[in-house]
């Protein structure tokens, strides 16, 4: 790939973005190449392009969101991450970002592998199925838990591969993936003080963000 050139924007991007997006944005170094997988209408991408001079690319499955993103001058393609990530060459990006989506993929392991094949770092965020409210709900209610973060019924949820934070840490270990940084988040997306890979996070945080690299 060529030197990254910042993505231009037709509309003025907003300096204020959702707390969890801001957290991810802060993890991205300026003037790098970023692929936002499941980029939606491009909120994060346009922020990164405008304020971090990033060469910002996106992949999104919803056509109307893709249209919204391209209409703002962002480089976004319509596609399915489970089939389309394989097209990208090794090391094409500095970062591949996957927010709140891994649990909805058919093959999270393959997706994770692809993210770290095409990018030096993957920034992955996940809902934590080990949160005490979820455990309590299943224990006491005896039914599949539903929370503000996971509001769907078992039969219509897109989240077919839910995991706990500890599950995810195990998967990374088995795939020789190094967790470079991690953040435990509350339901409001606020950073918690305890380690994001330990039992406390697994019990008390609703969400976690990981910066991953290959071990080698």
């Amino acid at each position, binding site marked *: *790939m*060529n030197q990254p050139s910042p993505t*231009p*924007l037709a509309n003025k991007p907003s300096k204020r973005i959702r707390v969890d997006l801001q957290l991810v944005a802060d993890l991205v170094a300026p003037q790098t190449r970023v692929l936002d997988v499941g980029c939606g209408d491009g909120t994060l991408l346009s922020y990164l392009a405008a304020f971090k001079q990033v060469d910002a690319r996106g992949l999104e499955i919803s056509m109307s969101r893709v249209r919204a993103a391209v209409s703002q*001058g*962002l480089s*976004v*393609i319509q596609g399915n991450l489970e089939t*389309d990530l394989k097209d990208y060459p090794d090391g094409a990006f500095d970062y591949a970002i996957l927010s709140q989506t891994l649990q909805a993929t058919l093959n999270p392991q393959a997706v994770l592998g692809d993210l770290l094949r095409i990018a030096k770092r993957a920034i992955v965020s996940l809902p934590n199925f080990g949160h005490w409210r979820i455990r309590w709900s299943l224990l006491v209610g005896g039914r599949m838990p539903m929370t503000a973060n996971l509001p769907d019924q078992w039969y219509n949820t897109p989240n077919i591969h839910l995991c706990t934070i500890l599950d995810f840490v195990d998967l990374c270990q088995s795939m020789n993936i190094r967790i470079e940084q991690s953040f435990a988040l509350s339901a409001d997306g606020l950073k918690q003080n305890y380690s994001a890979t330990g039992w406390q996070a697994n019990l008390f945080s609703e969400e976690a963000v990981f910066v991953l690299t290959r071990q080698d």
Partner: protein
Amino acid sequence: MTTTSPTMPRATAPDPDLGTKVVLTAPLVLQSGETLTGVTVAYQTYGTLNAEKSNVIVACHALTGDQFMCGTHPITAKRGWWDDIVGPGKVIDTNRYFVICANVLGGCMGSTGPKEINPATGRAWGLRFPVITIRDMVAAQAKLLDQLGIGKVLCVVGGSMGAMQALEWAHRYPQRVFAVVPIAGSYRHSAQNIAFHEVGRQAIMADPEWSHGNYLEENRVPKRGLAVARMAAHITYLSETALHRKFGRKLQDRSTLTYGFDADFQVESYLRHQGYTFVDRFDANSYLYITRAMDYFDLASENGGALSNAFKGSPVRFCLISFTSDWLFPTAESRAIVHALNAVAANVSFVEIESDKGHDAFLLDEPDFHQTLRGFIDGCADAQKVQRP
């Protein structure tokens, strides 16, 4: 077919002004190996070139389009093919951009083609005109820009055959174009596309008036053959839904079937009209040559069988656009290009527009399409800090 052909709109002037022309000073070496000298390129421009010459957009027309993309067409007196898109304040805003559209090499609207006089013989070229390709068309455009003193182009945009030219521009002149927008196109003509073109060509050649391509010198016009070619092609530009919505099985100016071969159905009458108005503005041999150029186009085979080879390391920004109901250049074709571009990590956007209007949707009022096109091009202009003229 001759029984109920509708009256066709005639040219407003017997010898219409075909706009601006340039004779290329450099010879054009064709892909076939032949060389054309003294090539004329007829073109139109819209908007004003800015001081930095950085606001240039090259628009490439489709098979039967021409350089008269907006305003009133000098021959048909109808609106230009992209009058919805190009103009002051429109999707491609001519208050901001300088848009150039050239009649393709091999065309019949003033650029060198089989209809024109071969300077070497003083006779119309006819079938003695060399077979040209999409690459040759684009080479002629590039030479036109050379002579106009224009170096870098902000964006090359085109639908259908125009999309092929846009891809060829990105492939051949990656340092000369900042972005390309291939719309409703492909990197190669499929077997089905070639098959439809062959039907058209055979219809023309089956017309005795075609006279082995010598009709101009014999003062004949292969109207029927060309009209049938147009009719067959026109069906491929529409969708079944669009045809059904427009015509259904409605009868034409009659309440019952006539039990004959008149145009009982509105759809028949419509196609005949399409066919017969077409022959007034198009040259049959040009139709043969341009369809052939499209058939020969294959960026993958030219690059060792892998399309991605055509764009390795490309600095060009791409925006692919397709339409859901386009079965002539279906979305899968655009997606194949996207995959190839991803494989070389090129900067690419891709949008499929929901439309039931078939291939022709790129010429029609499709707000989602227009919004996408405008956003992409304006985004490119902002990136390049393009000043208004």
